[in-house]
């Protein structure tokens, strides 16, 4: 058993120490810490007895007199600890210590100081510095001894038990093994043949080099990494919204692995790529790691939001800690870690370091274009100023005539405006509205019944790209969910941008759009007044796709980058009021009254929105303005406007192009103040916590020397530096163990995400440290590590069981053979595609989906189906991977739901799996394609059987096999045989 590996402290504990009184720090404190302090410490110690420090403990201890010490009385009576009494040795120690004067040591007790029988301390093996161990020397060296240092370590352990390595596997088995392992696909018959015949001493090394250089290597090993980081392509929770652009991260992982990016760089970019290389598109994509997990978008009231954010941070801290450090720091959110030396404060330090992580899409930077954009924006600003200077006197004059002299000078000019208190007419142009259904004009404005009522304009006579929607509205209820105030839509309502109330989040304003494609929460406050008074709301749509909301002239929550602007074409767009988009009905209808509304052909600035809000109607129409200008001024104005529009168009095109590529990645938030939360509860906030690492990790300094209010960039830069520090012992140990795990099916530590107390103990601790040290000295090259491992004799062993070895080491922990294993679900699917000739080997890019995505009122449902066509016959790593969906075939083959990290996969064998491989539509279709391919390649049942064997098994059939299956082919055709082969043990097993 893993747990039976004795810890140093325990050994000390039971060693007889003649005459000397027990040492408090080494012998007594660990007992108190592991057996008493869970209850008897903290702010409310049980029985008001705090044993964590001398003053508190003195209440229960009378030095020299155990019989008078309450502590000893209760222990001796077997009452304490209540669940599991102390061992005889522990009791003896405690008594001796009190008898000898109860001398106290470090005060207060540091419960993390030493590893005990129940938890890990600072002296825990995985936290200690890596010292490169010497490679063992064979006791009886032979010329045939393998030269690879890995083998020396493995053989040394085997010899201790009188065991030895198995002989090398035959060439066909070996090439099949290493192909599946390094690229996840089977070798072709020709590749097998060439390798079997290659007599060069380095024939195997040549194959390994070729595979490591293959673009498919990145696809294979990226899938492993995506398991670890719980990469999923939907949000999870109620809406489970698909993340259409998260694949950029998946592709980045594939490329980074193919390029053999040093692992320290690989880690740093995922933690802080956007900070370290803000103008490097790849570095920004890498931060998809931080937001690979679930994200709740339905949050209710402010308190629920705050709790959800704490939950989210716990998940992020968990992901970062387990992935790179093999520590479950997330367990310390509500209390000190029960098993590892991670305090609750440590958790909040990490949470503080990651406090700026935000979920969303961001534009991928393009350095050249951003310079150009900045230049054009500057030009545009200058022209706009020129225009304003020309128009200002005329505007002021008009306003003065209208008796609105107080209207701010920068009140913007709309392209259409309505004052429904007077009529439905457009005060600027020709977009006069007409009432439909239960809509009517009242003295208060355009009154909408929330059922059938809406107002519609005729088609617009102008193009509308950048724009601002603005309205003053009073709502009938604040509980309504989804009514549109003002909406610009195509006449059929299929494309629209609208001011919408309460649809996605109760009582909050949002920018509605077709299929939510341009929707994100503004994160604005709950609306409380709009049912009492007319409330102003405006949404601006900028050229770069940014959408910003304003309420009563002030920013509403935060603007966000959308997928880009919609271009509404002249004659192909109308404005509707009171309906999110047509056709009318359901929750799209607004119950309320719109008094004033305006439409602009540009995204107003904050100042302009403010001015417009203040003026509430004091705008100047184009006709009025023109009338006040001289003929010469009019000509100049036309010229400037032309110039203005030209620049704006250019800018729009450029920004649209550069921002149309979005990646789901970290979108930093202001990190805010991180506080220690007693029991993890927001209701009991404690001290402010500065970002920092974990004190228990030896090597890099955990103190980042940052203030609690440090900006996000500093926090994550320092965190990345600390995690990937060359002297962080966990950093290399965790990854070399992970890599080993995937090559052999079991890690040197069998729990790759947990090198703490609850995890496994290393089967070969020296080998683990040697590998970690070698890995660091090879500049963190993963490919070098792979090559080192797969060229070892340990890896190249045959897989056949050996009785005498099984009897000693049934689990093969000492590696006396290569343990056969079933292929993962993705590899089974990919192998079927490859063998049947259907595989589309296209590398990278947006993936494919074998789910039909059904949107039901903003919630996504995923119905599996079997799509046909080369774009769907790509490797499984390119499959769309929603959370909480079930694809059938792959799920029964243990593909994990990306809702949680899967550092190692289960391998189950179930009837449902058998049914699925035997009957699933895709599996049968692939078998049919396999049959077609074989029929094309060979003639006659005998030859066809041989060809099928070569493709599926990379060998020729035996005489018995040929006889058996030739009959099946003769009776029922090749497709029956191909189905059988895909279901056979040999096909799905790597030996």
């Amino acid at each position: 058993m893993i747990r039976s590996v004795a810890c140093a402290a325990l050994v000390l504990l039971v060693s007889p120490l003649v005459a000397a009184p027990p040492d408090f720090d080494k012998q007594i404190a660990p007992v108190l810490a592991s057996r008493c302090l869970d209850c008897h410490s903290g702010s409310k110690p049980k029985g008001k007895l705090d044993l964590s420090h001398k003053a508190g403990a003195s209440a229960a201890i009378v030095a020299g007199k155990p019989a008078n010490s309450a502590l000893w009385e209760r222990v001796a009576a077997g009452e304490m600890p209540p669940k599991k009494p102390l061992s005889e040795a522990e009791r003896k120690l405690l008594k001796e210590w009190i008898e000898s004067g109860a001398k106290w040591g470090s005060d207060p007790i540091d419960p993390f100081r030493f590893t005990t029988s129940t938890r890990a301390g600072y002296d825990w093996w995985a936290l200690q510095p890596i010292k490169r161990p010497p490679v063992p020397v064979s006791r009886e060296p032979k010329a045939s001894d393998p030269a690879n240092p890995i083998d020396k370590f493995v053989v040394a352990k085997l010899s201790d038990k009188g065991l030895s390595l198995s002989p090398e596997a035959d060439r066909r088995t070996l090439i099949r093994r290493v192909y599946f392992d390094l690229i996840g696909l089977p070798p072709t018959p020709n590749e097998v043949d060439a390798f079997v015949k290659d007599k060069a001493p380095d024939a195997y090394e040549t194959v390994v080099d070729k595979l490591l250089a293959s673009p498919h290597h990145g696809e294979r090993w990226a899938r492993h990494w995506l398991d670890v980081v719980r990469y999923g392509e939907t949000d999870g929770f109620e809406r489970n919204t698909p993340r259409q652009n998260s694949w950029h991260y998946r592709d980045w992982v594939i490329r980074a692995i193919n390029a053999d990016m040093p692992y320290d760089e690989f880690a740093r970019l995922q933690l802080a790529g956007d900070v370290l290389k803000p103008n490097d598109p790849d570095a920004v994509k890498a931060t998809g790691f931080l937001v690979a997990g679930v994200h709740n978008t339905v949050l209710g009231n402010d308190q629920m939001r705050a709790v959800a954010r704490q939950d989210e941070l716990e998940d992020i801290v968990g992901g970062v800690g387990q992935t790179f450090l093999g520590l479950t720091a997330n367990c310390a959110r509500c209390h000190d870690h029960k098993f590892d030396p991670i305090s609750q404060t440590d958790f909040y330090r990490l949470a503080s370091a990651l406090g700026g992580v935000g979920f969303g899409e961001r534009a991928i930077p393009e350095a050249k274009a951003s310079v150009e954009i900045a230049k054009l924006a500057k030009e545009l600003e200058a022209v706009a100023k020129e225009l304003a200077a020309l128009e200002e006197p005329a505007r002021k004059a008009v306003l003065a005539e209208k008796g609105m002299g107080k209207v701010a000078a920068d009140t913007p000019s709309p392209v259409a405006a309505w004052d429904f208190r007077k009529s439905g007419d457009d005060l600027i142009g020709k977009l006069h509205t007409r009432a439909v259904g239960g809509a009517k004009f009242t003295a208060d404005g355009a009154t909408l019944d929330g059922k059938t009522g809406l107002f519609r304009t005729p088609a617009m006579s102008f193009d509308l790209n950048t724009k601002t929607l603005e309205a003053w509205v009073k709502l009938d209820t604040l509980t309504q969910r989804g009514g549109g105030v003002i909406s610009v839509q195509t006449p059929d309502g299929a494309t629209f941008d609208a001011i919408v109330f309460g649809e996605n989040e109760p009582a909050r304003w949002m920018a509605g759009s077709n299929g939510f494609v341009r929707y994100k929460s503004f994160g604005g406050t709950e609306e409380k007044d709009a049912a009492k008074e007319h409330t102003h709301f405006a949404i601006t749509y900028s050229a770069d796709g940014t959408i910003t909301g304003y309420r009563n002239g002030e920013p509403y929550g935060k603007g966000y980058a959308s997928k880009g602007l919609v271009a509404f074409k002249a004659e192909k767009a109308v404005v509707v009021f009171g309906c999110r988009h047509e056709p009318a009905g359901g929750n799209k209808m607004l119950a309320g009254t719109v008094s004033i509304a305006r439409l602009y052909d540009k995204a107003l600035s904050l100042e302009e929105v403010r001015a417009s809000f203040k003026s509430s109607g004091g705008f100047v129409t184009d006709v009025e303005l023109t009338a006040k200008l001289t003929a010469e001024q009019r000509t100049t104005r036309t010229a400037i406007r032309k110039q203005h529009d030209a620049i704006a168009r250019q800018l729009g095109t450029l920004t649209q192009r550069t921002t149309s590529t979005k990646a789901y990645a970290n979108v930093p938030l202001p990190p805010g103040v991180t506080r220690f939360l007693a029991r993890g509860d927001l209701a009991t906030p404690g001290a402010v916590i500065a970002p920092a690492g974990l004190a228990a990790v030896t090597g890099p300094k955990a103190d980042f020397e940052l203030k609690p209010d440090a900006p996000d960039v500093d926090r994550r830069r320092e965190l990345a530096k600390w995690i990937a520090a060359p002297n962080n012992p966990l950093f290399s140990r965790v990854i070399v163990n992970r890599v080993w795990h995937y090559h052999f099916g079991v890690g040197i530590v069998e729990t790759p995400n947990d090198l703490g107390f609850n995890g496994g103990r290393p089967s070969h601790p020296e080998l683990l440290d040697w590998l970690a040290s070698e890995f660091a000295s090879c500049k963190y090259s993963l490919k070098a590590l792979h090559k080192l491992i797969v060229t070892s004799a340990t890896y190249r062993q045959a897989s056949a069981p050996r009785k005498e070895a099984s009897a000693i080491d049934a689990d093969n922990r000492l590696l006396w053979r290569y343990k056969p294993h079933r292929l993962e679900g993705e590899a089974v699917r990919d192998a079927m595609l490859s063998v049947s000739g259907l595989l589309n080997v296209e590398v990278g890019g947006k993936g494919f989906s074998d789910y039909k995505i059904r949107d039901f009122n903003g919630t996504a449902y995923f119905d599996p189906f079997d799509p046909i066509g080369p774009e769907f016959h790509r490797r499984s790593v390119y499959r769309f991977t929603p959370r909480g969906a079930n694809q059938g075939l792959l799920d029964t083959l243990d593909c994990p739901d990306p809702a949680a990290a899967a550092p190692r996969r289960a391998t189950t064998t179930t009837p449902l799996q058998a049914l699925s491989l035997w009957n699933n539509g895709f599996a049968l279709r692939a078998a049919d394609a396999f049959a077609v391919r074989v029929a094309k390649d060979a003639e006659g049942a005998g030859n066809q059987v041989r060809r099928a064997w070569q493709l599926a098994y990379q060998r020729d059939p035996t005489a018995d096999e040929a006889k058996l299956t030739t009959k099946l082919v003769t009776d029922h055709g090749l497709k029956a045989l191909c189905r059988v082969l895909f279901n056979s043990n040999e096909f799905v097993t790597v030996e």
Partner: protein
Amino acid sequence: MLPTRRDVLRSTLPLGAMAALHQFAGAKPDHAPKAKRAIQISLVGGMSHIDSFDHRPELTKRHGKPLGNDTKPDVFFGQVGLLRKPDWEFKQRGKSGLWVSELFPRIATVADELTVINSMTADSANHTPALFVQNSGFQFNGYPALGSWLSYGLGSEADDLPAFVVLPDGRGEANGAASNWSNGFLPAQHQGVVFRGGDSPVRDLFPEKAIPAGEEKDSRATLEKLNQMHLERSGSEGALAARMQSYALAAKMQLAVPAVADLSKEPAKLKTQYGFDDPKTADCGKRCLLARRLLEKGVRFVQVYSGGPIAGSPRMSWDAHENVKENHGAEAARIDQPIAALLQDLKQKDMLKDTLVIFTTEFGRTPFAQSAGNVVGTGRDHNKYGFSCWLAGAGCKPGVAFGATDEIGWKVAEHPVAWYDFHATVLHLLGIDHEKLTYYHNGIKRRLTNVHGEVVKGVLS
């Protein structure tokens, strides 16, 4: 003994698994179980306790009055209207005198079988996280459901049916879909298996296009022989033999699943009792009868949903924000008769003595209306502070109500029961100590009840 840590670690090793639906079938429970199997009726959207099982006469008295001096409640939509009396009359039922409202007139006829818990509390008042907690004890995606834990802990009594079967509402799956019956980090065979209508009640039970019987038979025989030859060559690897066995079990399932799903041979009278003849009750009635048949055949846990997706209008769940009377009236009319029939049927078949029936909802509803502060609106908002669920059958104290909310049904006043207590109680009734049913995942020995949970002794017989 429950699966040990060693078994669990081994179960995740390559080819280490047994070929069975139920890795731990036949494992002995911790203590003598009262229940051998369980069925859960899961009401999605939040059923109003004060309109159904929690009789609060004071609420009726204070109808139209404000909630009072309490700090403003943090309800989902933030609207706190005036107190609203129940829309249905409460009556004492049966010999026990248990209070059940006219919302459930048929269930009321079996009130003497029910153990109502009126003091439930939830961690979240947000549908999906709350439903996740009800199912798995955690608000996040990715944790094993109660049914998966039972499958892991007890297995199934049948080797040709899954241990955990899910029967979603005919109108659609609840939000979160398969996340609600996920095996999480437990091995895949513990996932809830959805039974649907039609000839292939379980996905991939048969090929979409039928394969001629002769071809099917010969193909199977060839597969078996090829695997046998391979097995001999590769040194009789246990896992390879297990894989062969899984194909034999699959063939058994192909017979067992359509047989259990075929309701046609059930007596016409019974089908009428279950509500087959009325379009309102037919969906739930069919699923309840199927559930009984599954339990009879040895399935460990069946989950029957009442309510589909949350959003949309008209509503398809119990989420009565707009109008409790309309919404709950319509939803109850779909399930009242079938559930009453299920209880009677189980009793009649003498199965109720060792079958646990669980009737749950993710949270309750507020005693005040969801409307402006000076109005008695017609709807009610979410309430996580107090609500009702009930148990019936094996090991439960029948005809009693346990715990209480305050006098208007707003917050729990006596014996609060959190979901982890509820889960601990359900496991206890099935013979499992909730602290011992663990599975190692990423540094933690995970439990259904996390680090909490106490068996609610007051509901045990």
